[in-house]
């Protein structure tokens, strides 16, 4: 039974039934012969492949032994995929391999490079075997090339997908870490912002803050930007918008910790900050907020009495 035809038939019945595209019985015979050849010479071919990987300076993050071990299992999976024509096992293997090697810093071009190298090594060996029988070589390559290309494709796509998945996960994690909205007292939230604010993060900060105001029934919010090194007009305007949106929800916003540089920038670019209450540092921000909420801090009252 021809597994490749079965597989192709599952994806696209019309293509499999069209006579021009359908693999003939001899293709499967040829593939079987091919696989037998690859099995027979596997030790030499694997060594040759590993040698060329090292020669091409690919997978420099891994030791020679690791490369050889990895090469062995890739080789076996490769031949198996050629033999059965099904890519599921190879897909699973490619995903598994990617999970292991991505944290070690292996790049996309390396993975693609080694798979293409294997394809070349195998084609070269086929060529030297059948060089006497040109017509047969032709047919063998006809059978080999589409299957090999599909395998290379599968491995590369598997790798890239795994990489993208990792990147997405990290982005998600960073996004969540970057917007902690903390409740300090009843009705009082603190939003410390650290690092660079880009438009996307600014938007997310606002959304998070507005949701938290509603969820915690906050009346005062202190946004502390001590940890923000620079601010452009876009972000500043967004900050003003956040203050206004919070007011629409009935919360007062106090911005604390504007650095001298940011103060200069904001004045120079002429952002209208008249709607924002600003306080020097976080401590001052919290004191101001407690005052608005009607708390009487023991300390400030003592000072007030001493002064008064």
């Amino acid at each position, binding site marked *: 039974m021809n597994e490749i035809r079965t597989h192709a038939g599952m994806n696209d019945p019309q293509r499999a039934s069209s006579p021009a595209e359908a693999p003939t019985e001899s293709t499967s015979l040829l593939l079987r012969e091919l696989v037998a050849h690859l099995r027979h010479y596997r030790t030499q071919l694997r060594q040759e492949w590993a040698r060329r990987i090292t020669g091409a300076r690919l997978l420099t993050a891994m030791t020679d032994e690791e490369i050889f071990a990895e090469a062995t299992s890739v080789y076996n999976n490769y031949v198996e995929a050629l033999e059965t024509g099904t890519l599921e096992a190879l897909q699973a293997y490619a995903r598994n391999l990617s999970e292991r090697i991505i944290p070690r810093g292996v790049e996309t071009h390396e993975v693609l490079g080694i798979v293409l190298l294997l394809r070349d090594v195998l084609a070269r060996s086929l060529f030297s075997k059948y060089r006497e029988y040109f017509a047969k070589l032709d047919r063998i390559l006809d059978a080999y090339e589409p299957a090999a290309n599909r395998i290379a494709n599968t491995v590369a796509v598997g790798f890239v997908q795994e990489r993208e998945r990792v990147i997405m996960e990290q982005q998600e994690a960073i996004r969540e870490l970057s917007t902690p909205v903390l409740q300090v007292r009843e009705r009082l939230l603190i939003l410390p912002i650290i690092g660079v604010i880009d438009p996307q993060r600014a938007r997310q900060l606002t959304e998070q803050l*507005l*949701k938290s105001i509603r969820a915690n029934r906050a009346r005062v919010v202190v946004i502390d930007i001590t940890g923000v090194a620079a601010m452009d007009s876009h972000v500043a305007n967004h900050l003003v*918008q956040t203050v*206004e949106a*919070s*007011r*629409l*929800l*009935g919360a007062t916003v106090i911005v604390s910790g504007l650095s001298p540089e940011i103060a200069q920038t904001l004045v120079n670019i002429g952002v209208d900050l008249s709607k924002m209450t600003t306080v020097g540092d976080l401590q001052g921000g919290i004191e101001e907020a407690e005052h608005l909420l009607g708390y009487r801090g023991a300390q400030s009252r003592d000072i007030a009495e001493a002064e008064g």
Partner: protein
Amino acid sequence: MQVPILKQGPFLIASVQSALSDADLLQLRDTLVEQVGRYRSRGVIVDVTALDVMDSFSSRTLRDITQMIRLRGAETVVVGIQPEVAFAMVQLGLTMEGVPTALDLEEGLAYLNQEIRTKGNETERHGR
């Protein structure tokens, strides 16, 4: 669709139940301005929790209501603006300046009670 207006002690509560047409908004304005005098109310709460859209006309009408009610001697507070609505509004530049806002009905009542108290204190002080 008409907005039901409830009398609660010294306050009127207008609870918007669904999206309002421009005519509905104007009617709400007229009714509130009229009733605030008839019931000698001290404050008005407009609850917009059910609104998921706020356009320039509705925010302008809410501002008008606030100012008219103020001229009639009472305070207005708009409560229950949803976070997404608030963000969309400021992006459109509808910041409803001069309109007091509060998180929900409860907060709105607390705000009005406090406003009445401070006003009362001021009158007392002036009286002395």
